[in-house]
């Protein structure tokens, strides 16, 4: 089997040599450096923790080489549906690292943190304008926490009106976090069907709407990449029964400057700043998941809220009806700086161009793929498209195999097997930052794989063969979990 490069095998522990140092610390400049002089002996650890003993050179080379085992947006096209893997501007990184932001303590008195507070206040105002909501809390640490905050606010709203509603409706095409967040907020989840076109089934919605329903939670555009065209009817039906309507904002990249959740009748929506607003994914986080609400939910926002009075900014924690706190401090501020820098860089016309080009790129990819792969929906899509590998499956090649083959051809894989309602789903989100040349190369690769599935499926079934490892045994990992390194682990180092 050809290997493109000699794989790098080590873990940091396997580079360790007794007595080797990677740090530089000053001599103690105060008396009594021995902790035994200050603390009872029984509190002190006799043996130092078993961290590796490596030099700075070891560390730099090790993590540089580890990084080379990854695909990132900076190195590869990343058409991962629902994740909006767009380019993350470098200037945003410089801004977030300014000492005045990066080295600011969260409990600095408000008077000495006016720049940070002003940035937060302006960002909340901008997100409110972009979404058509009345108020925005920047506190949630990620989309799932924004969802939890949103559903808890809806719960507090109903309880304040003396209503104990028990259910939340969620379409079968929803992200897994929707039902999970809803369950933590104490609600039973009722799953609704999608209709044949892929939109919310209105009849099923009407059947399930009653006075026991607290909220309807939908993604707009939905996870099939379709704008829910009957959205006004949906929000009106819900409101008629006192049901609050929540928008999962994961797909906000499709609608900047084109339409606003607040104008569509949504009561709550969250934003994924690590998707639409270019903060990097970092291999899984951190993100930021601000949540916007209409005025009637304002009393319930997470505390504290940034307020402005006569040009002075402050954290207002005196909010008796608040759902409380979601994380210890005020939000993932470092991510907020990046999103703020992005919005200021783009301006209103630039943001609209983002969504227009995201929609253009997705439709271009869909058009180019539809000869080889079955479309999951009809008509134009928004910022992402879903195709099915049903045809390839009959040839013995699954969506998973196609994903692995794409890795060999230098592309990260689309999202696979999601949304759950599409058989052998491949969910592709090209984003606006990619050029036609990149999209063409990707579509050529997809066409090549479809041809391989027809004529020589082995190449697809054996993929990947050019990466540091071949397909990995997931079942073994789960059956016999090995979650930490031990010197005796089989296969461990020299």
């Amino acid at each position, binding site marked *: 089997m050809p290997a493109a490069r000699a794989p790098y095998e080590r873990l940091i522990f396997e580079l360790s040599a007794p007595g080797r140092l990677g740090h530089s610390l000053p001599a*103690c400049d105060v008396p009594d450096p021995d902790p035994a002089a200050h603390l009872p002996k029984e509190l002190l650890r006799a043996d130092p923790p078993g961290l590796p003993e490596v030099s700075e050179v070891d560390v730099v080379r090790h993590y540089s080489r580890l990084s080379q085992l990854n695909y990132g947006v900076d190195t590869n096209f990343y058409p991962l549906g629902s994740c909006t893997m767009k380019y993350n501007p470098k200037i945003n990184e410089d801004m977030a690292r300014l000492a005045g*932001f990066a080295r600011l303590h969260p409990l600095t008195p408000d008077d000495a943190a006016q720049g940070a507070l002003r940035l937060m206040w302006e960002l909340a105002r901008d997100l409110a304008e972009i979404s058509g909501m009345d108020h925005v809390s920047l506190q949630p640490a990620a989309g799932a926490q924004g969802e939890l905050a949103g559903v808890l606010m809806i719960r507090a709203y109903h309880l304040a009106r003396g209503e104990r509603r028990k259910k939340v409706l969620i379409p079968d095409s929803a992200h897994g976090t929707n039902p999970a967040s809803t369950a933590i907020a104490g609600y039973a989840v009722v799953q609704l069907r999608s209709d044949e076109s892929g939109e919310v089934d209105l009849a099923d919605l009407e059947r399930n709407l009653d006075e026991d329903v607290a909220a309807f939670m939908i993604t707009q555009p939905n996870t099939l990449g379709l704008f829910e065209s009957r959205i006004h009817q949906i929000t009106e039906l819900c409101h008629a029964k006192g049901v609050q309507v929540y928008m999962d904002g994961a797909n906000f990249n499709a609608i900047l400057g084109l339409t606003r959740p607040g104008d569509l009748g949504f009561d709550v929506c969250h934003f994924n700043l690590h998707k639409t607003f270019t903060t990097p994914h*970092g291999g*899984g986080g951190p993100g930021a998941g601000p949540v916007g609400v209409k005025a009637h939910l304002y009393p319930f926002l997470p505390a504290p809220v940034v307020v402005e009075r006569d040009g002075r900014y402050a954290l207002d924690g005196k909010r008796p009806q608040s759902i409380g706190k979601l994380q210890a401090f005020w939000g993932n501020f470092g991510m907020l700086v990046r999103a703020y820098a992005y919005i200021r860089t783009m301006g209103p016309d630039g943001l609209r161009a983002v969504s227009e080009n995201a929609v253009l790129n997705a439709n271009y990819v869909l058009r180019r793929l539809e000869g080889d792969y079955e479309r999951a929906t009809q008509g134009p899509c928004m910022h992402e498209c879903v195709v099915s590998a049903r045809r390839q499956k009959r040839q013995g090649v699954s969506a998973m195999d196609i994903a692995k083959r794409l890795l060999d051809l230098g592309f990260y*894989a689309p999202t696979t097997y999601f949304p759950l309602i599409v058989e052998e789903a491949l969910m592709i989100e090209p984003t606006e930052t990619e050029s036609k040349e990149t999209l063409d190369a990707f579509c050529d690769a997809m066409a090549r794989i479809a041809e391989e599935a027809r004529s020589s499926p082995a190449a697809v079934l054996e993929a990947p063969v050019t990466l540091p490892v071949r*397909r*990995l045994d997931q079942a073994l990992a*789960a059956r016999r979990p090995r979650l930490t390194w031990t010197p005796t682990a089989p296969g461990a180092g020299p």
Partner: protein
Amino acid sequence: MRYISNTKAQQREMLGVIGAGSIEDLLVRIPPKARLGRPLDLPPAMAEMDLVRHLAGLARANASADDVACFAGAGSYDHAVPSPVNHLISRGEFFTAYTPYQPEASQGTLRSIFEYQTMIAELTGMDVANASLYDGGSALAEAALMAHAATGRETVVVSRGVHPLYRQVAETYGEGPGLRLRAAPLGEGVTDLGALRKAVSTATAAVVVQYPNFFGCLEDVAAAAEIAHGAGALLVVVVDPMSLGVLVPPGRLGADIVVGEGQGLGVPMSYGGPNLGVFAARQELVRRMPGRLVGETVDLEGRRGFVLTLQTREQHIRREKATSNICTNVALCALMATIAMALLGRQGLRRVGELCVAKAHYAAARLGAVPGVRLRFPAPFFKEFTLQLPRAPERVVKRLLRDRILAGVPLKGFDRAYRDCLLVAVTEKRTREEIDAFAAALGRAVA
């Protein structure tokens, strides 16, 4: 627009392939009355150099730890960050990668998380650690929910020595599942063990103590473990990982779950976020843990490789039956911590801890000798301690900012009982000169 790659000519060409006359033709599903018929009301686009000027101005309006000697703590600390940390995490292959759902193209991230899990397990003395949660507060909340699910019991007894903001987060998360948080009072700065014993019953899912606690004091964790286990409850310990180079790890004192704020391990304070939620547990609890876990396995050719594992706990598989709703975590902060721990190594984390202990005790002696000022609690402490002041602490903090000293965190906003107190943190970065200047300025401020 430099972040959009297609030229006008390419856009026309692509529309031609699609068979659309314009981008508007692609937006037909959006009903006309849903369209925003005007430009967004936002400030106009800024060129890069203007943006830099604007943001540098906002940054300058903040008193950062570059401008002042930072003695503030309470969950966010001015520890040193070794230079390679920022260089390495800024590599695009780490920085711009997604969650490692395609393991063959994500071995770098997966391996670094596996190293992180190993280091955290080692530091805390626990069997397993997850790939991270958002912060110390949400980590405590998840621990409370996990104890609730593991024991089927409704009440969590939380010491008043646990960070008040963490307790608030746990209350928010406990609201839906109907989890009751019951506060256990403090004696002299540490949990009143007699009162704790009375508060615990067969309805108690877990006992939570913090070590060192919010006021800086070191709790008797083993005694809390004995009380919790005596009632069939779990013991949750909130830690500061920076202390675990010198302190006995909670895993050896009877902890079942260890959570904490890992920000001190190489993550910038960044006005309170992103942080690093540390979460570790005993092996028996692993299938109830929240968040991602990386495990070792082999590939088709028998080579070692790493994958996300035990995913049937997680929301993308189990949906409303998942152990937690968390998806995005703080992987990059965990990478910062991994690199920082690798650089500090076996010797360094202990050295940092020793410097913290020595400097904090020097500072406590100097500040406590200022007339009218006293050390509030007699209990042993690590790097943080509580002072009682003869003047309103908020005013003292304001006054000392003029001397370029961020004196600490006034406790009035956290606990009325300690409204005359100031919480002071002393990391390895503080110098004797800064501490002496602090003592002198404090003397002037309270005179």
